[in-house]
């Protein structure tokens, strides 16, 4: 970087050897942006594949009040996600996922506050806000684990499906969902739920690991010795991206 040139006096900036920051962003930040573009394509691939399969299945045509689970049409998401921990049997559509959304947005705010404190080299505040961000991430992952567990175990009543076994139509009650059968709708619906929220959850998990690393290096004075808190900013970009993806998953998986 330019700072290293000052030790040898007046040296011309090295245009092709890292002396100049292209696009006025440091190497690390630029590469994080380009990584995030590629990650955007991966998530878009998953969400658009969901759209393809969603549009190739019949939609539910009746009124929401009379909705029952069936593998013959695509379910209404608010009828699937209506459980909240400790409130067994109470129908609270989308409340839990709303809480999760709020937690993730809030952890994004504490992250950007940590970045802002880093600009001022305010170590105590970076530590404080990084801890809040880590806590928010862990809470989100915990909520998601509960939601998955509920989705896998299913409702008390289950759903009766008709299927062709050895040339005979038989009826069978199934509970919950896995990759091959699904009480809430077509099996593809559960598959996309597991893949999309699972892939996002993996990103949150690696984000938490990175945040813990940043917290550790801040707390041990690593960035003070280096004289720059830019690493907080780079990991911050990743964390905001995870929040951004959730905004899209929330709309296209839970609302539409």
């Amino acid at each position: 970087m330019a700072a290293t040139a000052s030790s040898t006096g007046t040296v011309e900036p090295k245009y092709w050897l890292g002396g100049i920051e292209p696009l006025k962003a440091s190497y690390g930040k630029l590469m994080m942006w380009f990584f995030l573009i590629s990650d955007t394509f991966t998530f878009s691939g998953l969400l658009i594949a969901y759209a393809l399969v969603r549009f190739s299945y019949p939609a539910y045509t009746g009124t929401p009040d009379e909705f029952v689970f069936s593998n013959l049409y695509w379910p209404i998401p608010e009828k699937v996600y209506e459980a909240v921990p400790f409130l067994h049997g109470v129908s609270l559509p989308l409340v839990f996922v709303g809480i999760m959304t709020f937690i993730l947005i809030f952890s994004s705010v504490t992250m950007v506050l940590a970045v802002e404190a880093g600009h001022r080299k305010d170590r105590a505040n970076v530590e404080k806000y990084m801890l809040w961000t880590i806590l928010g991430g862990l809470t989100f992952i915990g909520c998601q684990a509960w939601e998955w567990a509920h989705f896998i175990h299913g409702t008390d009543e289950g759903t009766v499906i008709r299927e062709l076994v050895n040339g005979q139509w038989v009826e069978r009650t199934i509970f919950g969902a896995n990759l091959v059968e699904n009480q809430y709708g077509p099996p593809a619906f559960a598959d996309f739920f597991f893949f999309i929220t699972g892939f996002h959850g993996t990103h949150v998990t690696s984000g938490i690991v990175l945040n813990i690393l940043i917290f550790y290096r801040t707390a041990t004075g690593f960035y003070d010795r280096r004289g720059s808190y830019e690493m907080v900013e780079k990991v911050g970009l990743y964390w905001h991206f995870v929040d951004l993806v959730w905004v899209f998953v929330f709309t296209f998986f839970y609302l539409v």
Partner: protein
Amino acid sequence: MANVHAHDTPNDGGAAQRKVIWKTFWILLILTALEFLIAFTMDHGFLKITIFILMTFVKAFYIVGDFMHLKHEVKALIWSIVLPMLFIVWLLVALVIEGEAIFDALFL
């Protein structure tokens, strides 16, 4: 480094920037609350989905622009991030049309 990042040492101790952060937080929170309100008060249809998608893009604009600071980067960087998103639009249009064709072939 110092001459590259003008925001490294803010004069007011970062108070103005923190104000922007909290303003963005309230905008995101209110938009999400509105989405919930619309989810349970409006009949399902084309209009509702359009409103949801527009609100999602507004939220994305605030997250990317303010939290990820893209609004304050140089123009060339902004465009090199935003323009590749056109590929996503193309893929979305292509596969939604394809999905409807599969539906027609299977159920009509």
